[in-house]
């Protein structure tokens, strides 16, 4: 961990629909990163790729397209956690001197047909047990989770709406956000229903886009010449409860202590946070798991820390306002926190942001997701 420095990050602005294919998106994200950081393509010796829709191509095919000659190469398609997975492996590669300058890139492009295919063939459990009963869409599983969470925490639709509205307030300051128009509570409550408890603003909109980051060994010349970001802690735990729980606790609940100890920080030290936001319910579940509030205190936390924006939460607008470009969604929050820590966030910049938190969450199995990871970053 001490050997890793994150140099910079880019995001191709997400769009709702595009004719550009995934290969082109991934290439463009890497080339934009190369231009932004000034690294030469021939100096990149590690490449990690995350995508659902890049198949049949893989990381090596992107390397060939861009004439990158990697000594470290990795593919990861674990959805909302794939960016932090890639980072975890990349850090090990830097520590082992298997590579010195690594690009991680995530991107996806879906149309109606390919998105339907993704949903119906997401995994064998989904294909065999959820699709046949009309429950292949994650909207319905997260609707079940929201209903349960609402009851356990005595929350109203307005409470989830507050989180969505505050994220939209951030999005208004992000020229790249897909949805920037202000959202009122009436807009939120009157939105088209997706289920008996979820409206469209509770469900992450499908988008097209890509993100990329550059990380190097701390001794790399580019790390010496730039303001860089240090990884203070990275912890992950997947399938922690074997799908035997209620889905409202994630693996983060088990790694919380290790994470904060490794970072030598507490939730109070975090200046900017990107909590994986496919659905508002899971943002609250992850914040609780990481110790931002005690169990059953979600309502007062929303009132005191989210409504007031005391917690700088998903300052890009999050995926709920920027969209979810498939696995790129796993890198969206990471790019935003890097952007904030490097002081590049313009109108939405958190003054003097020193420490950032990023989470990843994803991969529905039968009733809820299996994967969870959290990362703490600090400006060097």
């Amino acid at each position, binding site marked *: 961990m001490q050997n890793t420095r994150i140099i910079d990050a880019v995001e191709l602005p997400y769009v709702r629909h595009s004719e550009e294919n995934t290969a082109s998106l991934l290439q463009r994200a890497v080339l934009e990163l190369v231009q932004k950081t000034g690294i030469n393509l021939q100096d990149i010796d590690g490449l990690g790729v995350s995508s659902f829709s890049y198949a049949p191509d893989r990381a090596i095919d992107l390397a060939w397209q861009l004439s990158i000659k990697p000594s470290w190469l990795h593919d990861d398609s674990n959805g909302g956690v794939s960016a932090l997975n890639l980072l975890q492996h990349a850090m090990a590669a830097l520590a082992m001197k298997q590579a010195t300058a690594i690009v991680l890139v995530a991107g996806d492009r879906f149309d109606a047909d390919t998105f339907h295919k993704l949903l119906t063939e997401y995994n064998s459990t989904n294909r065999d*047990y959820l699709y046949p*009963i*009309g429950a292949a869409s994650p909207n319905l599983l997260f609707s079940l989770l929201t209903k*349960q969470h609402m009851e356990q925490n005595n929350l109203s639709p307005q409470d989830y709406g507050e989180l969505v509205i505050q994220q939209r307030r951030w999005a208004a300051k992000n020229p790249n956000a897909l949805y920037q128009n202000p959202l009122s509570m009436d807009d939120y409550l009157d939105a088209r229903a997706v*289920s008996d408890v979820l409206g469209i603003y509770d469900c992450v909109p499908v988008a097209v886009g890509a993100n990329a980051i550059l990380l190097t060994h701390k001794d790399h010349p580019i790390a010496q010449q730039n303001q860089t970001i240090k990884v203070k802690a990275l912890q992950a735990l997947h399938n922690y409860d*074997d799908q035997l729980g209620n889905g409202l606790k994630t693996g983060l609940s088990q790694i919380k202590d290790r994470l904060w100890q490794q970072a030598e920080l507490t939730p109070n030290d975090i200046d900017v946070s990107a909590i994986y936001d496919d659905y508002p319910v899971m943002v609250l579940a992850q914040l609780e798991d990481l110790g931002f509030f005690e169990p059953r205190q979600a309502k007062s936390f929303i009132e005191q820390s989210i409504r007031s924006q005391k917690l700088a939460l998903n300052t890009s607008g999050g995926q709920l306002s920027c969209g979810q470009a498939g696995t790129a969604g796993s890198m969206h929050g990471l790019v935003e926190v890097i952007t904030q820590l490097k002081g590049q966030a313009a109108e939405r910049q958190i003054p003097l942001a020193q420490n950032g938190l990023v989470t990843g969450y994803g991969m529905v199995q*039968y*009733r809820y997701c299996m994967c969870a990871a959290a990362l703490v970053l600090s400006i060097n």
Partner: protein
Amino acid sequence: MFYTYQCQCCQQHIFPKRAICPFCYNRHFLKKEDANGIIQNYTIDQRSQAVISVVQTTHNVLVVTQSPHVIAIGQPVYIQQNKNKILSFSDQETTS
């Protein structure tokens, strides 16, 4: 008819079946009838009006089903499986 999988070592039931018992790491299961349960949670798909429910079976397994009509939490149901289509009916039939 609906079946869950009982671990031959610790007797716990699971569904869907997997390679290893998550409770005791045994590999051997017996298919056991486990069709009676109660509605633990449900949601309604606004577009299709499908009622997707989670049923807690007698052997404490949570099964995602589709109910043919709106049901209530706590309501007893009977699960039927037709190939992979798992449906729960509120007109309970007793099987034991």
